[in-house]
């Protein structure tokens, strides 16, 4: 298991199941509520009129209990794939996915609340909460150069009452989440096709080209979601990212890479297809003293009953057939966005 002690712990899957299913009172940490106090999503960021106008069936359903957040999660070893495959040979991992431990409020203490925000309840011991998303270095901290750390600390203060536009978290403007934040914001779809893996997020999409011979775009082009080339190694989707513009920031704690970063990603899937761990190694000599790795656990959602307006915003399709088909409405954030702080700041 990944845990906040920074070392592997061996726990039986039954315990994981118990954490998943049985600890809802513990799982929805206070930090989650605090984290989402500011409007962010296509729905949370709308004016009331907009909400009424664009509310989806999923959103008008009485609030469901969000699946409990994990405090630890299993390591998944890279290895062979024994699960089902698509006709083109890819492991079949298509579906609705979302991260399991928290959102983008705090990268190094994902269940510790937004940095600098008052808490209603005091935090307990650090080891009671999910580990830092930084899995390397072992101390869970970003290996910033001094200038960059100073910028992050400025952001963490300015974020709470931004007077500098650079301190508005780009996601609040419905900017694309970029890499890696798109994987721990709202839930997302992964779709697969011969030659491609496609991610569809709440604001934008990302196309992974499964073609090693297709060259990256010219270096001058910088993109929110980068330019991705991938291939499968057994149960692992290995992706090489270039052309990333660094603008998305990593979350409300303000960490970032520059536009000269390169990213090597591994999406390591469990053979039962129920979950994967993301391991992204970022190399950026202009901001950091060494490469670092971010680990993000994710689970697949398969039932309408788990629709919670965040991780899953889907419903059973209407049809006369016998099988249940889960489907998602259009994902449009920007146009529905009421502006940061419910319109206090233009989007």
């Amino acid at each position, binding site marked *: 298991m990944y845990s906040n002690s920074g070392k592997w712990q061996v726990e039986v899957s039954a315990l994981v199941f118990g954490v998943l299913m049985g600890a809802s009172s513990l799982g929805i940490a206070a930090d989650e509520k605090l984290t989402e106090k500011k409007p962010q999503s296509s729905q949370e960021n709308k004016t009331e009129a907009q909400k009424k106008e664009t509310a989806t069936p999923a959103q008008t359903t009485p609030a469901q209990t969000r699946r409990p957040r994990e405090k630890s999660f299993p390591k998944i070893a890279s290895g062979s794939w024994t699960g089902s495959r698509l006709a083109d040979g890819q492991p079949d991992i298509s579906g609705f996915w979302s991260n399991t431990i928290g959102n983008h409020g705090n990268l190094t203490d994902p269940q510790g609340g937004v940095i600098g925000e008052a808490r209603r309840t005091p935090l307990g011991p650090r080891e009671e909460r999910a580990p830092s998303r930084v899995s390397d270095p072992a101390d869970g901290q970003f290996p910033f150069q001094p200038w960059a750390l100073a910028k992050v600390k400025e952001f963490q203060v300015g974020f709470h009452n931004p007077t*500098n536009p650079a301190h508005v978290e780009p996601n609040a403007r419905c900017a694309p989440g970029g890499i890696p934040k798109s994987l721990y914001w709202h839930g997302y779809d992964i779709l697969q096709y*011969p030659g491609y893996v496609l991610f*569809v997020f709440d604001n934008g999409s990302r196309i992974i080209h499964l073609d090693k011979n297709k060259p990256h775009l010219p270096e001058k082009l910088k993109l929110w979601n980068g330019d991705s080339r991938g291939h499968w190694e057994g149960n692992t989707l290995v992706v090489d990212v270039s052309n990333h513009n660094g603008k998305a920031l990593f979350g409300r704690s303000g960490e970032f890479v520059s536009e000269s970063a390169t990213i090597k990603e591994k999406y390591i899937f469990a053979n039962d297809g129920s979950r994967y761990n993301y391991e992204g190694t970022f190399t950026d000599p202009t901001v950091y003293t060494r490469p670092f790795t971010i680990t993000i656990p994710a689970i697949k959602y398969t039932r309408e009953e788990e629709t919670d307006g965040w991780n899953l915003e889907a419903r059973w399709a209407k049809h006369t057939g016998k099988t249940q088909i889960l489907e998602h409405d259009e994902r449009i954030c920007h146009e529905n966005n009421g502006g940061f702080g419910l319109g206090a700041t233009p989007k």
Partner: protein
Amino acid sequence: MNTSQTYRPSTPNQSRLQQSWLKLPTLKNDKLKKMGSALLLLISVFTFSLVTTSADAHDSTKIPRLANGKPDFSGIWQTTSAADYDLEPHSNRKDAPPGPGIVEGGEIPYLPKALEKRKKNFENRATDDPALKGYTLGVPRAVYYPEPFQIFQRARDLTLVPQFGHSVRTIHTNNTEHPEDPNDWWLGDSRAKWEGDTLVVDVKHFNDKTWLDRSGNFHSDALQVVERWKFLDSNTIEYKATLSDEQVFSKPWNITVILYRHREKNFQLIEDYRYTLDYDQYYPPKPDQK
């Protein structure tokens, strides 16, 4: 020899060509007969080649297909038409090339009140076109907007990813129906069925915030679009759509555009989230200037 006499139509109502075909077998002169035979052969070959060319163009076995046999529209597509400048016939102007329009019958049948709004939209097009803000283009505009879009296709659906903007459209092909108690969506709700090799898509439940082109043609939230997607050959799609909207149009009307497959080596979409351009200079942090 006066062939014109030989081939003269026997009755004023028969065409020269018909008459020549009728007359050929009755020719007496051997030399002429040979020439006639050669001509007949030539015509036959020409006709045959016409038929085979035509057959190639519509050879339903040569278009890409999914494993389930349905046409596979996967690929990156784009129109070369000037439809997005103005769906209706228009002369050149400072912000648009001339164009014959793509509306069947020429003009969109606006209701009188709607026509006033369309005129106002036209006057304010330099500022009011939602596309200028990088907004969702909507349906059908995203199909003929002059930027590429990629179709990803499975048996259960088609996913349309535009280069312009961020709005991914799903066309369901799994016998599902429009949802009950639906909302108004930027892209509407798309449910499709196959009629032979033609994909017929019923799209409704729109909002009223998108335009149909940059000249201010518009619709209300009562818009319904029925699209027909069909391969002309493996690299060309004929796209037809019927638009109806009782709040805005007096009757349904039709458009047609041709979409071409991008075949450039290594061609790919390049994200164009231009709605971020007003603030993207603030990110990421940079070292302070010394």
